[in-house]
């Protein structure tokens, strides 16, 4: 064996040696998802991380938008499950991989809940309503995305709640007059829904722009096969349109009627005036049998 062969073999051995890689971290920032508590949230994060990136992967949960943003931008996390409202209002670069599934659907209508009995919506003027939106866009989320801009800007006071269960608890405890939460949540018996509201997507699985390509590829492939607990049971492929649609709804709507264009066929029809069609039929005497 020549010295050249020895060098090639050594190089190949070196390539095949175990690398000392950082474990993949999966962050979870999803205040709207009704996890039963922080432990459940963390368990979900860990289970999902291992499913997406292997046994060494780590799951972390975030309660504040700023912490999550910092971790994502700083490269502390490579994958994340994020509320769609956060993605719709921030410019953080990311790659959309999938959308979460809960109760068999990728989105759920929301509802406005109050202490029973439910009063007319108009009676809530001047009251406090809480929303599990912690990125600072809670007012736009409630007034525009959920109520379509129908309410006057000063109709009520909208405040952020750490998460969905906290929002419900705030109403139960009298700290808030109402809350907006996804439909399907098990409400305490003394709460009632005032009205149903438009659907909002469940959280999005994203990859940080800094995430290694193989991590992104593996996560995209693994996500649909995830089978989780009750809060989030799975994922389906998605693209950025989900976030963009909500982003449009977050803006105060400007309602304008459409312009219309007449159909030209009316005039085209004038070119056909006077057309006559006739199918030549045999002379009646031709039906006489041949002699």
């Amino acid at each position: 064996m020549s010295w050249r062969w020895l060098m090639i073999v050594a190089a190949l051995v070196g390539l095949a040696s175990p690398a000392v890689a950082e474990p993949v971290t999966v962050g979870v920032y999803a205040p709207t998802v009704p996890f039963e508590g922080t432990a459940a949230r963390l368990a979900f994060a860990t289970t999902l991380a291992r499913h997406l990136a292997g046994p060494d992967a780590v799951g972390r949960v975030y309660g504040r938008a700023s912490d999550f943003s910092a971790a994502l931008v700083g490269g502390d996390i490579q994958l994340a499950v994020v509320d769609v409202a956060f993605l719709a209002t921030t410019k953080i670069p990311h790659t959309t991989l999938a959308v979460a599934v809960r109760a068999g659907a990728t989105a759920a209508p929301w509802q406005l809940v109050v202490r029973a009995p439910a009063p007319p919506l108009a009676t809530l003027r001047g009251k406090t309503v809480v929303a599990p939106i912690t990125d600072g866009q809670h007012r736009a989320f409630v007034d525009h995305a959920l109520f379509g801009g129908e309410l006057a800007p000063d109709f009520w006071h909208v405040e952020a709640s750490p998460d969905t269960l906290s929002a419900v608890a705030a109403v139960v405890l009298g700290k808030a007059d109402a809350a907006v939460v996804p439909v399907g949540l098990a409400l305490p018996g003394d709460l009632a829904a005032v009205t149903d509201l438009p659907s909002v997507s469940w959280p999005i699985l994203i990859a940080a722009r800094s995430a290694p390509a193989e991590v992104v590829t593996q996560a995209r492939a693994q996500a649909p096969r995830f089978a989780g607990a009750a809060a989030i049971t799975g994922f389906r492929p998605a693209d950025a349109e989900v976030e963009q649609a909500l982003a449009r709804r977050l803006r105060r709507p400007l309602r304008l009627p459409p312009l219309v264009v007449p159909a030209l066929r009316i005039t085209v029809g004038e070119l056909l005036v006077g057309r006559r069609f006739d199918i030549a039929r045999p002379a009646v005497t031709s039906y006489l049998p041949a002699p």
Partner: protein
Amino acid sequence: MRGSAIASSVLALVVWAAAPAAAQPRAEDDSAALVDSGRRALTAGDLPRAAKALDAALALNPRRVEAYVLRAAVHAAQGQPERGVTLMRRARALAPDNADVATALGSQLMLAGQADEGAPLLEEVVARAPARYEAHALLGHYYATRERWPDAVVALEAYQRTRPAALAGDDDRHRLDLAEAYLRTGRAAVALELYRALVRAHRDWRGARLGEAWAAAAVDCRLARPLLARLADEPAARAEVLLVDGQCALALGDARDALRQARRVLEAAPTSAPALALVGEAEAARGNLAAARSALEQARALEPNRTRYLIRLARVLRLAGQPAAATTELAGVALSPSSPDYRSYWIETGEARWELGTAGGVVAPLTQATQLVPDDAELLTALGGAQLQAGDPAAAVATLERAVAARADAIARPTAERLTTALVAVAEPAIRAGDLATAERALTRADQLAGNPTVWRDLGLVRLALDNPAGAVAALASAGATPDAVTALLRGRALAGVGDLAGARAAFDRAAVAGGRAVEVAVERAGFELDTGEPDAAVAALVALPPRERGPGSAARAALVTARHAAALAALHQGQATRAVALLDEAARDATGDQAIAVRCDAALAAVATGDRARALARLKSIAKLTCPFPSPADTQAVPILTAFVDGLSPRRAATATARLTALARTARGASRALATAALRVVAMTAAEQAYRAGKVAAARQLLTTARASGASLGDDELAYDLAVLDLADGKVAAAKVVFAKVAAKVPEALIGAGVAADREGDGARALELWRQAKRAGARLGVLDDWIAAKERLYGGGPR
């Protein structure tokens, strides 16, 4: 009876005939006195004294002709006609041109049994002197003896007309033969009346009573059977009467009774050929054809010369479906016209050959038979059939109409059917020759006689050709609920002609399921549907044909091109441009000539209407050098206008297209100008809509101004609405509201605009109401449901 009638007649006739007449020159000698003496003695029945006087007269003057005549009469009265013949031959030699002599000689010859010489002599006499009643009488009876019944009728009727009144007392004896002659020549009703009169006058004349029964049997067996029952009690006539009664039973459909009567005869006379013949006919009637044939063959064996049995056997064979065997049997017989079976022989021959289709070969003998037995419906029917099969339907019609006229009562079914066939055979060539009036007359007559599917079809056809659909409907309706394809098809045409479209459609449906003529049926149906403004149904009718029926050059293929073309234009008028394109593309595959150009031009129009810009441009380019069948000058100007229009639907090309259309609109005239201005308006409004959606309200307004300036009459309401929308965008809420209210009935989107205006003014409830109205009116806006849902959360009416 007949013999005594002849003998007594001869005596009386001769006495009368030999009476002094101006034609007889007389010598002035003693012989005249002797002749007078002889005549008186003859008249008194003193034959010896008459013979003596007359012999003396002849001795004195052997040239006295009347003496010969009277002396011969004495010989006749004495039963010595041979001597009378000898004497009259001498007289004939003396006076060969003397009618009295010829008559007397002829009479003596007849009495002497030398009828072959006597009858021609008497026939010469009556030919020269039709008033020679005595000759008529002798000939009449002679003919009756020889069963020359037509001749007997002529002779005996001549006698009745010419005989002297003094002989009226003997009329009934002559009438007996005359009645039989009538009966034998098919004039049974006349015979029956004569027999009835004879029976009333002579109750003891058995021949008259038999004749009455026979004639009644020939007229109506229901009349005959009571008469026959009375006659059956007379032993002398028992067998004959039973046989006729059996025939009547057979005629009345009681074959068992006929058989019973025949067997009663056979019990007494086991070898009775007539009874066996009756057995044969009865068995045939009962369907026992083998037994029938056997019995008739026995009868024929017993009386081989009796052609009547052969004829009956032939009839049985024919009815058994063996007309060839019947013809074979009949072919071996040669009958003279004087045979009593002559008539029935030719009837049976004609009928058997009719069924074989070879009756055309016996036209001549049948014609002769009808001359000998005139006005015989059965014989005329046979002749008519023969003429028909000989290819002379016109002659057949004439003959069969005679047959119809010969029967005062109901028309026999074979006669009616044959005449109907002949009338059709006359009518169809007339139709082909364009002589529709003749054809209609013939077919109308055929319909009256025995209408059948062919008659109804042809009559309907002729009436349609005569532009008489109501008459055609009446004729074709006779064909019932399940006519053949052609009849159903003609019925469809006729019903369409009288405006019964549902009926016509049902008739065409029937034609389609009747089988056969599938292409004609489909083309007729398609033509009908097209005429009634249902081009899609026309297409469906043709497409339902198997592809092989729609091959190149077929009528169905050409019709399908037309139907698809028409259906496409209808679809285009209804706003179904995509469907129109599809139909025109299918039509284009088989269209040729000018139609192909028209289809391509219209397909380009339809493509424009689809809004598929790329497809429209491609199609417009393909017809750019063609002259389309649009109203001039659009035939040359429409394509450039439409091309610019479609081009202008692209946002980047809108400005260029607008300029191009503005230029085209200036030079365009008529429909082209309308098209150009409309295209300009649509292009400008389309570009405005695109600018508006991009938030470029000012640019949109400028484009709408161009649209307004185009001068088009198209889309004024839409344009006013669009300008109001821009006003609303510019905050001119009040102005916009006015326009929205004005055009809302025609532009439902104006209700959306009015709702937005209300919302701007803080009236959310009104906005909700207007948007709901807009939705109901069909206004198109993707987010309208969201707007309504949002309002309903506040104002109710929503999900909760």
